[in-house]
């Protein structure tokens, strides 16, 4: 039921008709494209990549885990693409500032598939994968900590590598390395000798 609604939604969104992107050479990617219209397949240095809508990210991972014998989201990370205008993108994918990249692996089929979701700057929220796959709990916290992308549904979305009171997200491109003031500045001036 939700699928039909989603299909309709994507048909409206997706202006480029099916003749543009070639049929994926990867059968898992083809299955994902069939189940989630609007996703875009790309081959990046021989690796299968599917660009998915960020609202679908959890559903796609669920589809891979439940129906395609995928076993792990090996790695999930965030990318700030704001300084990368000529970046690699699938055909017809509307670029946004952030990307969330999930590398999925099937041990049984010995296959990898990379899912990339575009995340806009004004609303950096992605559905958390933790309810489906608890093995990305720390990784999602790391993305939140360093990149400032929030994961909706994560049980404990707190800073992990930086102190809790830290301001900013250092892996963002506008968070320059030297911008952080020196810590311990409250130690005071050196006392004069009596």
């Amino acid at each position, binding site marked *: 039921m939700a699928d039909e609604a989603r299909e309709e939604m994507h048909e409206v969104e997706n202006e480029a008709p099916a003749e543009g992107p070639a049929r994926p050479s990867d059968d898992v990617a083809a299955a994902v494209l069939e189940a989630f219209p609007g996703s875009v397949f790309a081959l*990046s*240095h*021989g*690796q299968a*990549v599917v660009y998915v809508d960020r609202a679908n990210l959890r559903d796609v991972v669920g589809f891979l885990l439940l129906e395609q014998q995928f*076993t*792990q*989201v*090996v*790695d999930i*990370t965030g*990318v*700030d*693409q704001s*300084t*990368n*205008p*000529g*970046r*690699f993108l699938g055909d017809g994918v509307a670029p946004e500032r952030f990307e969330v*990249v999930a*590398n999925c692996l099937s*041990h049984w089929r*010995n296959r*990898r598939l*990379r899912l990339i979701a575009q995340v806009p700057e004004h609303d950096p929220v992605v559905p958390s994968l933790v309810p489906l*796959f*608890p*093995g*990305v*709990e*720390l*990784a999602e916290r*790391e993305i939140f900590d*360093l990149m400032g992308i929030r994961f909706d549904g994560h049980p404990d979305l707190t*800073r*992990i*590598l*930086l*102190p809790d009171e830290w301001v900013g997200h*250092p*892996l963002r491109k506008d968070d320059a*390395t030297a911008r952080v003031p020196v810590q311990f500045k409250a130690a005071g001036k050196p006392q004069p*000798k*009596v």
Partner: protein
Amino acid sequence: MGLLRRSTSTTDTSDAPAFGSGDERDGAAPNDAAALHHQTDEGSQLMRPSKAATDAAVREIVLTGELWPEVDPDDETMIVNMGPQHPSTHGVLRVMLELEGEVVLRLKPVIGYLHTGMEKTGEELTYVQGATNVTRMDYAASLFNETVYAMAVEQLLELELPSRAQWIRMLMHELNRMSSHLLFLATNGMDLGSTSAMIYGWREREEVLRFFEKVTGLRMNHNFFRVGGSAADLPDGWQDDALAVCDSVEYGVAEIDELLTHNPIWLERTVGIGIITSSQALALGASGPILRSTGIPWDLRKEQPYLPYDQVDFDVIYAENGDCFDRYRIKLVEILESAKIVRQCVEHMPGGDYRVQDGKVTPPPRARIDESMEALIHHFKLFTEGFKVPAGETYAAVEGPRGELGCYLVSDGTAKPARMHIRAPSFYNLQTAGAMMHGGLVADAITIISSVDPIMGDVDR
């Protein structure tokens, strides 16, 4: 009912030092204080009177002999902090344990004490310099980090390495796997109180590191594998050295094996401790020996061969119980498998170049710099500006000693990566500690953290 009472004397608190206000020092305190009044060249040495000591006219602690108040059963769990300076945490891992009596209900790792922003640093360094950065992540297996980074860049550049360069990488990988696993055996033994195992592990590891020093110039953090090959060829006579290393490591591993594998105390502390099932291990993102200890013979060297691993003969070691003993045993036997691969590398090492002869990524030979101005300029440009990598993104993965070590690299077409992310096996494996720990005893926490084998440089990056 005995009533214990202890009051702090406050007879003279006007200028008595805080440390002089105890019972036994009554009377003597003012004199001592006077003695300390003299001015030194750093000012008065007298501590300021403590405010707490002066304010509380009568501070008393009353211990009655009554029964403990009824405890709410919901409050019976206790949170205990372990680390970040605990010797068995292999660095600075802090672990919060929720205890119900002696039984651990939950374990939460608290990390970040070693975070140095290496992924951000990686964006500031050129592809030539990048290896010096990534090699410091998993400092027990630095050659793997360098390789996975170089492999990702080579994929973006679409470089094909000469076969000797690949075999050198394979040889060094297996030696590094040996040294890393020996480190594990040493620390695992030490954590469980078997200090002899520690000494044996260190001793053999030293042999491997000595070989590394001969080849790369450094014992750790080698910066040896660069984009396009390695920094240097193997030195003369490396075959004998490598074989000698294999011999002594095999001997040392046999000793550790003899010392621990049938040792009843060792078995008592590891067998059936920290059990994790295969579905748990998969769901928690485990890889490497932890996954293999649960009965899944998954090894990227076999399944997705990246170096000429398909041309050498070795076995994937796995076990089925998923306990601490299996993880110990897998790593022990993997050392022997690595030695087997090293021997084959010595036998089949092809000739040829140790790096790709592509002027774009390879500096000119040293001799050319003396005779050619262009070579000097080329060398200078390469090491200051680096080389540009076409825009793109890729993921490279190798089977590190702790599991899948990956590098997700995004290039924007300049000489520095736009994003360099390392998939750190220790980081993901750390999540399994909670599942292993559930229902175990406090004393087993040490065993379990040790058998997860986290390298904090890898976890925090």
